[in-house]
């Protein structure tokens, strides 16, 4: 009986240790997609950023997830070549003076709908603001997936060109499929 109890305790301890081990995933443009959709009365334009670098660490429980990424704003692309140039200009992202956008999580909480609420600091156009967005997260021993779609108001980051002609809300999409 004592041996059984000892075995159970040892197995439990081992499981606890295994769960507490953090796993780090390297993030890049290959396993992480950051996209945006801008809209105006006449239609919409899709785009995103091709290059980014960073890391995500998690110990199996998504609420322990920590993400830090640097996004190369010059890797911006869109569905129109002239628009891409315009988005890179001082009218929007001003990539020559703001070559890097950043995001770092500060908190991940379980949400009521079964997903998670991610809070973090987004630095864009030289300004840092807190954002909170819903996300579906699955964290395993050797894989991490995250999917989210949310909106930001571009004026909060000083991207104010075209007020009244271009919608202020921009839809951001984030998709991570990282493997160890």
């Amino acid at each position, binding site marked *: 009986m004592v041996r059984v109890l000892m075995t159970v305790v040892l197995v439990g301890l081992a499981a606890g240790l295994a769960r507490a081990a953090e796993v780090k995933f390297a993030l890049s443009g290959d396993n992480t997609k950051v996209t945006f959709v801008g809209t105006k009365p006449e239609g919409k334009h899709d785009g995103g950023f091709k290059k980014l670098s960073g890391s995500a660490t998690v110990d199996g429980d998504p609420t322990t997830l920590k993400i830090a990424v640097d996004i190369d704003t010059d890797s911006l692309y869109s569905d129109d070549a002239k*628009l891409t*140039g315009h988005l890179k*200009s001082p009218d929007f992202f001003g990539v020559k*003076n703001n070559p890097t956008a950043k995001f770092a999580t500060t908190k991940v909480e379980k949400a009521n709908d079964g997903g998670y609420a991610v809070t973090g600091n987004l630095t864009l156009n030289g300004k840092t603001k807190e954002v909170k967005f819903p996300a579906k997260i699955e964290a395993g021993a050797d894989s991490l997936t995250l999917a989210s779609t949310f909106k930001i108001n571009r004026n909060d980051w000083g991207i104010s060109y075209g007020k009244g*002609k271009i919608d202020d809300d921009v839809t951001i999409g984030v998709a991570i499929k990282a493997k160890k």
Partner: protein
Amino acid sequence: MPLPPWNEVRDALLLVLTPAAGASLALMLLIRVWAGPRWAPLAAALAFAAAVAAGNYFPEAFSWRLDSERPLTAGDLRTVLGWSLEGKPPAKETENPEPTPEPEPPPLPSPRYWLPWLAALALLIEGLSLLPATPAAAGWVARTLASVLAGRLLTPADMRLEMPWAPWALAVAVLAGWALVSTLQRRWEDGTIGTALGLCFALAAGVVLHAHSARLTDLALICGAALLGPALVCWKWPGNTSPALAAAVLVLPGLMLNAQYETFSEVPYTSFLLAGLAPLGLAPLTVPVLARQQGWRRWLPGLGLPLALAAAALVLARQAESLPFE
């Protein structure tokens, strides 16, 4: 060249050109006509400054604040001036794992941040240089120092690293333009140079429009409209408007340098260069036989030479790139 959509033209007229041109004309008329020719330099300086402020109110093309949510402090200005002159210092590594909390530093501004401040400096220096008590040599020393400062501040940091001569080249361009307009306007006192520079800014706006930046296009239009008052009023009531002209010849090359650096288009480098250096087209007019000309013999080259350079710039831009709405 096709015009932009009507709503874009309407917005530019209502929100940018009318406030700037209106403020420029109103102040120039009020002060020059009421106070007399002695006050023309002050009238021109105030007209230019008021026009830029009025024209910038809606589009905020000039980023004169470090951060719209952060009050402008003298300490912040000193900090960013140090960064802009020397380059922002790298983050310090410390052995202390718990760094002492420091006030959040202001954001690093783009070189364009310094345009309105340097324009104000040019207004001041040129205005003071015109005072009878100011020795001529002191005026030229001040103009030279301001030009060197402008060259340094308006050249982007990584351009300074790749081309260490770039700030000096910009400084020479600014000083040469400044010397030209100051010398010629003192002699002529009519609206030739103001009109020429105003039209140069309008054509430069066309170049930048082809480079796909509405913000920088607005910036060029604001400066062009700001010269309307000094230019038009002096055709009827002559006066020395060189403070406004000095601010203009400082802004134009700095604006075009940064427009070339910050925009992404097929507009060739030469286009930005010609537009930025268009005021130097006035150089032949310093030859005494040309400088003494009157009437159309002065107006034709005075307007035509700078505009020829600016027009060439626009033609090159047009050939290389189409407009966003085409």
